[in-house]
């Protein structure tokens, strides 16, 4: 199923034709280039009581990521590692058809794709989050709330999570130690593209998402390695398009990393 839509969300045929016509000339309705992401603002430490937080605005999409770090038991198969969990809530304040209640499949896919990029890039050094092996470790909870929806939640949520993690403090004092910054290594950047006609369009807004066929997210780290990929929504990509998407993600990722996480 596609992202929920309402009357206002269903594009008129005229608008659809307009977007398609513009793209044929290599343009987008908001004036961006095909591989250009929207201007983002990131406010870290937006909520000082959280262990880490970031408010991210990407165009008209807005998400709030908060980190809580608490003690708990490690997984039995990874006794020497802290634990990471990611959850995204698509709050009903963000869009007319978003409903409260348990997360639907869209929200689950969203949080799992965000989680995968962070986990597989080994951004967080989980081995440094052990208090007592097999007994007590730090658990890093990433909770992201979608406040305003105008497309591309995967990248907005990933950006928010990464920004919040980078400023997060582990409350070590509560365990007789000192508070210390969450140990992080690489910076994963997820870049999502949709296919409209035969074009790959980076960081789609809601209107672009609604006329797209197929979505592809590629998460890379600064070493240029691919850490996670996810194709979503009905539609297909050719192998050539996947290659192109990986190269776009790597380039855009580099720009985003330099701009926001230098």
């Amino acid at each position, binding site marked *: 199923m596609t992202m929920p839509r309402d009357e206002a969300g269903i594009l008129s045929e005229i608008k659809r034709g307009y977007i398609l016509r513009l793209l044929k000339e290599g343009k987008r309705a908001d004036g961006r280039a095909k591989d250009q992401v929207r201007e983002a603002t990131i406010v870290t430490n937006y909520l000082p009581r959280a262990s880490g937080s970031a408010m991210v605005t990407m165009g008209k999409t807005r998400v709030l990521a908060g980190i809580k770090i608490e003690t708990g038991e490690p997984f039995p*198969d990874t006794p020497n590692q802290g634990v990471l969990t990611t959850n995204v809530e698509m709050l009903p304040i963000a869009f007319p058809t978003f409903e409260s209640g348990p997360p639907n499949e*869209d929200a689950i896919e969203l949080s799992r794709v965000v989680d995968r990029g962070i*986990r597989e890039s080994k951004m967080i050094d989980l081995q440094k989050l052990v208090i007592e092996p097999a007994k007590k470790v730090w658990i890093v909870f990433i909770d992201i709330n979608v406040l305003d929806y105008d497309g591309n939640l995967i990248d907005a949520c990933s950006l928010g999570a990464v920004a919040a993690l980078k400023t997060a403090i582990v409350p070590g004092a509560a365990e007789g130690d000192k508070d210390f910054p969450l140990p992080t290594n690489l910076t994963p950047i997820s870049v999502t593209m949709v296919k409209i006609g035969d074009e790959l369009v980076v960081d789609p807004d809601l209107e672009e998402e609604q006329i797209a066929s197929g979505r592809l997210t590629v998460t890379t780290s600064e070493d240029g390695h691919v850490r996670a990929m996810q194709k*979503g929504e*009905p539609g*297909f990509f*050719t192998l050539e398009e996947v*290659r192109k998407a*990986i*190269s776009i993600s790597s380039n855009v990722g580099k720009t985003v990393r330099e701009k926001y996480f230098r």
Partner: protein
Amino acid sequence: MKQLGTESNIKLIDEKGLRIDGRSPEELRPIKIEVDVLNRADGSALIEWGGNKILAAVYGPREAYPKHNQDINKAIVKARYNMEAYSVDERKRPGPDRRSMEISKVLSEALETAIMVEQFPRAQIDVFIEVMQADAGTRIAGLTAASVALAAAGIPMRDFVAGCTAGKVDGQIVLDLCKEEDNFGQADLPIAIMPKSGRIVLLQMDGDLTVEEVEKATGMIMGAIKKIAEIQRNALLTKFSVTQTEGGE
């Protein structure tokens, strides 16, 4: 979620370059598909792929219910991927979890791309994938079986959907990961394709791959897909082919 790259002392590739189950890097596990194994379903298939044993069953097209789910332009495709309690080493609590919900979503989207959904407005096509025994690569094995079950149900499709995985094990790119390789490998890349056109309808990846490694892995998968599509085709032919003999008196 399973932690990839977990340290282990298990050596997954030996000095001769053979894998833990004796395969070469580009060798598929044995695959067997049987068509129409269930009575009630409109179409079904049983796939045995390495240690995987997975049933796929199709019901529909039938009227979409509840009605507000109906799409006036096309059928909705609902795949449900379900792992049975005894399918894995440690008993899995029955019912959907976050992993299975995500898999169900991407499988539905992959199948919807292949099915001629525009021919069935307001309808729903249900695809049930029951993993009876899991041995890595369950989502693409289930999808491969589902595509055969859809064909057996007589649902018009643009092409089969055939899937395969590749991954990185002991630093090497290999095809069709088995369970140990999946658990202790460094990357996993499941892909499903419409074989005639080479269109990719499912793609996921987690782990750590360089761009060159992705290229190598996708190349291996593309080669294997042809073999898998052939197995799908033969399974249907075995079931549905008409043998003509000279008529007697």
